[in-house]
């Protein structure tokens, strides 16, 4: 097994475009493009990553772009390079200076 790979996790590298739905019990790291439904525990969107669709996660860390319906049950972090558009549901939120957020927000 590749030492870099983690069980119950998915990694979409830069330049990769994925359409469909993913359900991962652990972690999803997205450096490429993702379109569709995503259910995961930890979602990390890298600087080159773009995620569009219905996202359900516990923890979300956005350095790239995140669009449409987002539900982050615990903590949502938008880094200074991050962009979030759409409907947001969150437990806790943190936005670094420079981070862009556009949309409707509700705290659960």
């Amino acid at each position, binding site marked *: 097994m590749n030492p870099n790979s983690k069980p119950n996790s998915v990694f979409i590298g830069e330049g990769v475009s994925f359409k469909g739905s993913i359900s991962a019990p652990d972690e999803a790291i997205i450096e490429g493009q993702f379109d569709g439904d995503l259910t995961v525990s930890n979602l990390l969107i890298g600087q080159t990553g773009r995620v569009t669709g219905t996202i359900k996660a516990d923890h979300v860390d956005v350095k790239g772009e995140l669009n449409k319906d987002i539900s982050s049950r615990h903590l949502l972090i*938008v880094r200074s390079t991050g962009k979030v558009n759409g409907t947001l549901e969150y437990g806790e*939120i943190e936005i670094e*200076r420079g981070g862009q*957020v556009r949309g*409707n927000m509700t705290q659960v």
Partner: protein
Amino acid sequence: MFNKFKTTPNNDTPESLVAETPTSDDVVIASPEISPAAVTTSVTPTAATPKSNGMMGMLQSNVSKPSILSEGFYFKGELSARGAIHVEGSLNGQVQVDELTIGSRGQVDGIVNCKNLHIKGRFSGTATCEELTVTSSATLDGHVVYKTLSVQKGAAIKGELLLAK
């Protein structure tokens, strides 16, 4: 005062004091502004005036202080200011200001138009600002249009955040 002591041993008689003082080097170096007629009396005032002018120059600075609406203060209406406003009380209505800080016990409800909006307390309504800072103790409910945004962990945001172009 030292000048007086230096001159007196050299010139014992008062007649020679008046005649000698302008030419003696000691006096000229120590206090060039002293006129020969009033050697002893004019020493202290001439030495003091340039010092006090320097101090006054240091004190002249334009630091704008924020207007403060302290705790227990309730304001309803329209508020307009060019400087900064710090709210610890309650503010209800329309606000137009450069810098608005809502303190941890402050509460603002209404329409806010400002450059810098710093929220530590509660805000509800509509705000248009350039720089929005939401700290961990803040509660935000409403619509905010911003250019630069930072939100600390723990802040509660309900409503809409819009990025201005």
